[in-house]
């Protein structure tokens, strides 16, 4: 099966295409089709898993060469090793559970089949992401995952908050992807190939300069920061709770956010070659984890608490992987790789369960606010107890799966005091807020009786996956029991197989921390012996700060979004006024120019024509009087001219140049002519009607 592992990814794609093109209006059929495809995928993943297990995690690579550009080969391929096998199982298992759960949860939704289409598309993207064997391919699927998460978060897009949340998720992860792209470009430049094996060989072999390697590592990590909602790009995950709960379970608990962790795990050869880069990774993981856990302490929305819990746990994983890379780069031993990936798997199960359980509660009481809940354990037994199991698991209580993975993570931090203290603090906070959530939701007196009366257990199609995930939450960690010689760590490892014996002291410490957290929550919210309200009063500034999510959203709004909107406004103004102004202005200029030409045409062109006519008229008007009809006048004229010509010809009068005087004489003659004609005309007027006019 392994050579055909890509079929696992293509099955959900096939489901998506079928639903989109053919099954849109057949809701039950599309749900059935989608679920059957993913269950089939689960079966195939299982086969691949066992095959990989038989190979002891030897990577299997197969690819299909597409083209070569600028010296880099572009190929489509699959790489199946232990990490891939784990991820395949996680994605298909949680995906199948979520799809089956959605049959009940989204039952009355008008866009039912579209939801399943989106889920299938998302599953395809995620499976492609984990199967990819080169950075180019993983980037394609990276973006696809981002797209489908946008589609799914803003599924109920009639609600403005949902549409905004979708945009926020997409844009924030896009910012991380920008760093990822830069990292990819650096990889292409310095490694000359996108293929994992090729790049890692170059990175480990020292062909890439150390500074460049660190920068590359950090840039690639940017992608993980965006996708896995690490600080400072963590702001989208809590808002993404606007989507339907199955979406939250699938994407924001189990799979999509795990893509970042997967990326860091996959690129471990890079991180393990640069101690500084790995330390950056670990630090960001710790900071994220702490911030998210602190915010989760005081939230009242059930899904938001879980969202911050997810961010916090992701921080754990990132931190573990980072510390591993750091220690390995410095030549020390570390269990971080095993710890991070193990936690990835167990977290997928119990966080998925927590979300689905929360969805079940929401479905029952139609509210997200835990302050309106209470005492639901009486009404929803299965939901309650699966939820409790998941909470115990996340708090790290022996012998649930969460205990083993959290223990590994604490073990990773042993050589780093700051991280050690931080991890234990965060573990305490995690236990506290999870059980605060449990006690407030399921126990105590119901605070809203109306909702309590209407609450009922969810249908089997919803509770079935809850039970399944609960079982997995319990047993999934047993694979990694330290007493096992060929357990998890011999399958998923980096470098040599590292096997450590059980550290009982460590187990004790982490248990004490977890139990104390649970006890505090018990005292505050079940027994009410410590008042939560009084604590909030006493630490009012801290409470407000935490309640408002450390004011991150406000900060980003003021620093980034508002300036960008202002720039957009400026651009719009520029476009409307300057560019449109230029267009309008050129039109105005054209009109103006045509006016000028009109003036020109009327006054100059027509003027010339009219003017010549006017001139002729004036000349004629003057010269016609020469035709006086009187022969004596003609004779006089002739004589005058003869005199003039003779005067000039025979030089009777000495003149230097003749032509000005000739002209002058002519002009004077013309004036005299006008004068004479005026007089003649006047005289003619005086003699009323001359008999000459009559015919002979």
């Amino acid at each position: 099966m392994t050579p055909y592992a890509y079929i696992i990814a293509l099955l959900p794609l096939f489901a998506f295409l079928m639903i989109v093109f053919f099954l849109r209006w057949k809701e039950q059929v599309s749900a059935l089709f989608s679920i059957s495809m993913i269950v089939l995928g689960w079966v195939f993943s299982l086969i691949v898993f066992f095959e990989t297990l038989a190979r002891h995690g030897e990577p299997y690579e197969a690819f299909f060469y597409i083209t070569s550009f600028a010296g880099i080969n572009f190929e489509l391929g699959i790489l199946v090793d232990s990490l891939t096998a784990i991820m395949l199982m996680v994605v298909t298992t949680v995906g199948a559970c979520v799809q089956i759960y959605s049959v009940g949860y989204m039952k009355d939704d008008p866009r039912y089949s579209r939801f399943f289409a989106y889920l299938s598309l998302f599953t395809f993207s995620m499976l492609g992401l984990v199967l990819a064997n080169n950075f180019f391919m993983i980037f394609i699927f990276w973006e696809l995952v981002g797209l489908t998460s946008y589609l799914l978060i803003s599924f109920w897009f009639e609600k403005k908050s949902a549409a905004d949340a979708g945009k926020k998720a997409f844009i924030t992860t896009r910012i991380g992807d920008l760093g990822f792209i830069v990292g990819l470009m650096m990889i292409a430049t310095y490694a000359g190939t996108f293929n994992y094996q090729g790049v890692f060989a170059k990175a480990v072999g020292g062909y890439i300069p150390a500074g460049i390697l660190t920068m590359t590592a950090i840039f690639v990590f940017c992608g993980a920061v965006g996708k896995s909602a690490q600080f400072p790009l963590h702001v989208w995950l809590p808002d993404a709770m606007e989507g339907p709960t199955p979406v939250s379970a699938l994407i924001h608990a189990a799979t999509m956010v795990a893509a970042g962790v997967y990326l860091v795990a996959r690129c471990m050869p890079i991180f393990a070659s640069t101690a500084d880069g790995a330390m950056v990774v670990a630090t960001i993981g710790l900071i994220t984890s702490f911030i998210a856990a602190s915010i989760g302490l005081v939230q009242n929305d059930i899904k938001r608490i879980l969202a911050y819990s997810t961010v916090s746990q992701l921080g754990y994983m990132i931190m573990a992987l980072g510390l591993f890379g750091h220690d390995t780069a410095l030549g020390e031993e570390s269990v971080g790789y095993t710890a991070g990936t193990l936690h990835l798997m167990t977290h997928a199960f119990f966080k998925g369960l927590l979300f689905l359980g929360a969805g079940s509660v929401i479905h029952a009481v139609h509210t997200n606010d835990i302050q309106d809940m209470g005492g639901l354990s009486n009404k929803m037994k299965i939901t309650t107890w699966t939820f409790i199991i998941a909470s115990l698991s996340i708090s790290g209580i022996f012998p649930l799966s969460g205990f083993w993975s959290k223990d590994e993570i604490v073990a990773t931090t042993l050589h780093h005091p700051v991280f050690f203290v931080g991890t234990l603090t965060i573990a305490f906070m995690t236990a506290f807020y999870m059980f605060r959530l449990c006690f407030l939701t399921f126990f105590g007196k119901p605070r809203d009786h109306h909702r309590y009366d209407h609450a009922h257990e969810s249908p089997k199609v919803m509770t079935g996956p809850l039970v399944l995930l609960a079982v997995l939450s319990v047993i999934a960690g047993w694979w990694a029991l330290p007493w096992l010689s060929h357990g998890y760590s011999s399958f998923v490892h980096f470098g040599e197989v590292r096997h450590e014996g059980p550290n009982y002291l460590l187990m004790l410490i982490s248990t004490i921390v977890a139990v104390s957290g649970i006890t505090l929550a018990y005292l505050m919210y079940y027994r009410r012996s410590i008042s939560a309200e009084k604590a909030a009063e006493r630490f009012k500034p801290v409470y407000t700060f935490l309640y408002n999510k450390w004011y991150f959203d406000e900060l980003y709004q003021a620093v980034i979004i508002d300036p960008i909107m202002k720039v957009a406004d400026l651009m719009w103004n520029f476009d409307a006024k300057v560019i449109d102004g230029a267009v309008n202005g050129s039109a105005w200029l054209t009109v103006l120019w045509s006016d000028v030409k009109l003036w020109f045409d009327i006054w100059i062109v027509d003027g010339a024509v009219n003017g010549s006519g006017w001139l002729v008229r004036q000349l004629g008007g003057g010269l016609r009087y020469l035709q006086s009809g009187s022969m004596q006048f003609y004779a006089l004229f002739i004589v005058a001219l003869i005199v003039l010509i003779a005067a000039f010809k025979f030089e009777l009068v000495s003149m230097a140049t003749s032509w000005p005087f000739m002209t002058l004489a002519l002009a004077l003659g013309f004036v005299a002519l006008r004068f004479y004609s005026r007089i003649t005309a006047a005289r003619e007027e005086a003699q009323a009607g001359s008999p000459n006019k009559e015919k002979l």
Partner: protein
Amino acid sequence: MIYYLALAALLFAIGLFGVMTRRNAIGILMSLELMFNAANINFVTFNHYLGGNGMAGQLFALFIVVVAAAEATIGLAIVLLIYRNWRGIDADNVSIMKW
């Protein structure tokens, strides 16, 4: 010699003045006769002082006399006609071809 020519010129100028000025048509004709005579004097003078080649000048003057006579005849006939039509021979009135 130039005295004769000067005389002729003067006579011609006076005749010219008369042609241009006289209202009466017959007056114009009389002034015209003056001009003719001035030309005659010129011819004869040249014949006397320069024209040893026969009597060309005098003959020409003779012809001028004849022509002038013929022309005076016709002119006066026309004047008579005008008189018949307009009861007056004011040259100012004979200006149908005016503007």
